[in-house]
């Protein structure tokens, strides 16, 4: 099947997506785009490559959790790199259509996101576009049915947040917990050798300052981002692999950086459209996820496939490695 999935992300917390850093300050990634009159303008955009990587990671995690039947399935480094980062090819590129087909059949996750397997490059089946903010500059690009403030400039949707990194080693209250390696400890309650003041001065100048104030430019909470993912030649199980990746991501639905301090939390509305057919609701991500019939059916087909595969792996621990090398047992 050929078609596209449209996603509207609504930011529930500020979004950090760094394009440039100057000293301790970081700025949002922008791209040149065309305004309504065809002139270049610089606008924030959330990279398609970042979204693709995020869903690839989630899809790989989903697969390994399922294959581990509850436990985490640990895999060799080469396979990890292939599933999570797309791998790399070593040496001259080779081509074996039958082997490529077998790999695609056995590992739908790899088939949709693509990757370098041995000397072969398997192209993915997704084209994950950048997420564009609904704003004045891009109002002519974003479809009318996408809600958001089209009067406001993208520049007005950004703000700066500053944080302090405290050097706890300089905190007198915490200092008792710090072992001073420069002072030779001698047994006894109060006996220590005092360090040479000159040496101590030199050491202090060598130490990098840990305490700093840093500032991040972020995209404001409440803003909406519109995004398109095109797919080509997907089978039902591969669509299920994509749905599974989204459901795994929905466990912690964040985009961008600084998630550890609560940034980039989103809700997402996804719609599905086969070329030449009507668009239909697909997945809603907000405090968990909600799947429509099409998404649920595709995911259950994928789950059934993984369960069968998990059974095979229990008997054959080398199963995944064999799948990659093309020696696949049914």
């Amino acid at each position: 099947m050929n078609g596209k999935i449209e996603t509207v992300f609504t930011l529930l917390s500020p979004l950090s997506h760094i394009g440039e850093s100057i000293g301790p300050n970081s700025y949002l990634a922008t791209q040149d785009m065309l305004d309504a009159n065809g002139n270049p303008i610089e606008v924030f955009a959330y990279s398609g490559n970042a979204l693709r990587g995020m869903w690839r990671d989630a899809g790989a995690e989903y697969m390994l959790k399922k294959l581990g039947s509850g436990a985490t399935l640990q895999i060799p480094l080469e396979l990890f790199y292939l599933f999570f980062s797309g791998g790399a090819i070593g040496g001259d590129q080779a081509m074996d259509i039958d082997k490529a087909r077998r790999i695609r059949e056995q590992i739908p996750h790899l088939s949709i996101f693509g990757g370098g397997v041995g000397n072969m490059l398997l192209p993915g089946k997704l084209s994950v576009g950048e997420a564009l903010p609904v704003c004045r500059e891009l109002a002519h690009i974003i479809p009318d049915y996408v809600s958001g403030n089209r009067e406001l400039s993208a520049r007005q949707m950004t703000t700066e947040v500053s944080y302090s990194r405290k050097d706890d080693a300089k905190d007198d209250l915490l200092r008792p917990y710090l072992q001073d390696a420069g002072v030779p400890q001698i047994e006894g309650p109060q006996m220590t050798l005092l360090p040479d003041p000159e040496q101590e001065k030199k050491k202090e100048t060598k130490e990098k300052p840990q305490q700093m104030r840093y500032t991040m430019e972020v995209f404001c909470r409440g803003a909406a981002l519109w995004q398109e993912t095109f797919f080509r030649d997907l089978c039902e199980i591969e669509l299920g692999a994509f749905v599974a990746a989204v459901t795994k991501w929905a466990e912690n639905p964040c985009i961008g950086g600084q998630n550890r301090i609560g940034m980039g939390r989103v809700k997402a509305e996804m719609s599905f459209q086969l070329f030449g057919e009507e668009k239909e609701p697909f997945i809603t991500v907000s405090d968990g996820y909600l799947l429509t019939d099409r998404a649920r059916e595709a995911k259950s087909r994928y789950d059934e496939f993984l369960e069968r595969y998990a059974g095979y792996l229990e008997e054959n621990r080398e199963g995944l490695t064999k799948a990659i090398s093309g020696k696949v047992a049914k």
Partner: protein
Amino acid sequence: MKPMKITAYMRTGKIATTDLYLPLDAMLEYVWIQQNHPELLEVSRSSIPPDELVVSELPLEKRGEGDEWYWACSFACGEPKCEEIIHWHKRFDFDLGTEYIDFGNRRGKVDVKSGYYKNYRMPLVTYLVPKLEWYAVGDLKEVALLVNEITHIGKKRSQGLGRVARWTIEEWPEDLSHLRAIPDPNGDMEMGIRPPYWLAWQWKRARLPDDGRLACNARLA
């Protein structure tokens, strides 16, 4: 077979390409292969031996003599507004690695500064173009069927670059399909004259018209 003009109106205008040739017959051939020999797209190729090369049957007029034949279809015409180098990144995820990698008896150390697992920050040359036009001679309806299957143009389509918003195809009073690489023994370079253009063994000595309408000849402001 009639002269026609094919126009791609771009979504954001951003196209990843270094030369701006963007031959439409190459994109039409890709769609033709998707429809007729999808197995060839299961895996990427860096070369194709002559006996394995599949020649497409495009609804375009064939021109040229013997092995120097080419399709009557121009390279991209248009006015790029600006050039921008963007970067894409590939990185090894240590956090996930600590959870999912089984190092076995090996030392759990991964070198991301060099070698197989190297992290990348790759520059990508992009151009901003509102619309691109091609001129061809062929069967307009059949060309339209193929063209409407093309959703993206240029490199890094997997990252959404080169998104086409819509296509128009119209009859055109003038045949401008010669705005392309034309085989010429006195030409100033060796280059592809038909798809796949990257396939070096079928490059020919050719000339590219010095015509300002070609996007590759356009001067950026």
